[in-house]
């Protein structure tokens, strides 16, 4: 029992650096932004020397955490409804801005039985012929990309027939994971994720017409206690440099609409 005291002292010393929090803006971002925002943050850090801390997760979960006082400076949601809801409760500085709009893509694993098609015709045929196995979308109950995937399937009259084949991701990244893993015949996911090299290496995709579903407007807002550093990054996210990155990941940006 004697070595206990030095061990505890060692623990305390080890613990010290964790408790200090740096003046780095803390950003909560929807997981669909993982690749685009990582690129933007890298460029921003190189240009300004200002480090950022970004937490990726589900928009719904972050909204709940912000209601409980999570110390984020900036929140980039996957769907504007969440930001507008928080703004109404006075939990964000204002209604924020739309920073990008997403699109849907049908995704199928390489060497799979099903081909990707923009009009979902391959999906309709597979359904008719009883050849469709599992098909992935994000949960339409709370995930924005899941809700829009449901709308696109409804638009093509496939929603009722596909029920028994659907598997649901907790968010669109997980749905994409399901769609490329080969455990499903494919899925309807975010175009931005279909474009990432990791996903492209394992799958084929087709872009679904934007008119088939309500717009996927993605809104961001500063929180009331946001630092000046966070305000600067918020402004940068609306600059041409940042918008180019969003566009390269398949998002539409406000001016181009």
């Amino acid at each position, binding site marked *: *029992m004697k070595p206990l005291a030095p*061990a*505890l002292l060692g*623990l305390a010393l*080890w*613990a010290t650096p*964790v*408790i200090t*929090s740096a003046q780095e803006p*803390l950003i*909560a971002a929807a*997981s669909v932004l*993982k*690749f685009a925002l990582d690129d933007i943050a890298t460029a921003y850090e190189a240009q300004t020397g200002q480090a950022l*801390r*970004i*937490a*990726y*997760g589900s928009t719904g*979960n*972050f909204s*709940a*955490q912000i*209601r*409980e*006082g*999570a*110390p*984020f400076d900036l929140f980039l949601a996957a769907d504007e409804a969440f930001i507008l809801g928080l703004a109404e409760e006075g939990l964000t500085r204002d209604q924020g801005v739309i920073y990008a709009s997403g699109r849907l893509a049908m995704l199928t694993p390489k060497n799979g039985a099903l081909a990707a098609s923009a009009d979902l015709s391959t999906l309709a045929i597979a359904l008719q012929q009883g050849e469709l196995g599992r098909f992935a979308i994000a949960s339409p109950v709370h995930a924005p990309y899941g809700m829009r995937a449901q709308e696109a399937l409804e638009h093509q009259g496939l929603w009722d027939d596909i029920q028994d084949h659907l598997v649901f991701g907790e*968010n669109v*990244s*997980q749905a*994409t*994971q399901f769609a*490329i893993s080969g455990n499903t015949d494919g899925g309807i996911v975010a175009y931005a994720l279909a474009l*990432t090299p*990791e*996903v492209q290496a394992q799958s084929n995709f087709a872009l679904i017409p934007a008119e088939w579903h309500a717009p996927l407007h993605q809104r961001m807002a500063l929180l009331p206690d946001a630092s000046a550093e966070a305000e600067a990054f918020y402004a940068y996210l609306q600059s041409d440099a940042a918008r180019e990155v969003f566009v390269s990941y398949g998002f539409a940006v406000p001016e181009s609409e």
Partner: protein
Amino acid sequence: MMDWQALNLSLLLAALTAAILVPVSVFVGRRLALSKSKSLPVIEALIALPLVLPPTVLGFYLLTAFGKGSPLGELWQTVFGHSLAFSFEGLLLASIIVNIPFAMQPIQRGFEAVPQELRDAAACSGMSPLETLWKIELPLAWPAVLTGAVLTFAHTLGEFGVVLMVGGAIPGETKTIAISIYDKVQSFDARSAAEMSAVLLAVSVTTITLTFLMSRKIGRRLS
């Protein structure tokens, strides 16, 4: 790529949780082992509760208990100037609560296995209860104490649901190894997820093996 920051954070969280919870469990666990109170089953049930509650349910309650508008959350904010939820301290407190059964149950069993005659004999020879604990009971029950510590440590490393709810996945502060693995899978980085999972698997196998070796040792010693 291994997320060293997340692993380091998890190891620290696990070590601190065990360092705080084990001494408490020694005193409370011993008391429970000797208790003849009628309300003992109720107390034991409360201690076991985190074992059966889904982590997300527990996480939701803790988020509410630590968050804005809760008395504890408000008090913490006033005293320390930052929120309890979404901080390392909040994660540590949540981790301690979640791990109570993992530390408490083996330690209580360990003290229960110490024959009462030994305590009586020690009392007859004029030893104080604290002396008895230190010189007679702990040397006999230490494998149980170690089991509690090891289980707490391993379980903290793997905890996901509670951390997801009360943590906020803040890099360097609340983003633990389990959250980081989830993150890697979500960003289609299967190789990093596999590497980090292998590390967690190795730690878990080692600790569980250690635990079984220890419990066998208690069995032999006390039979």
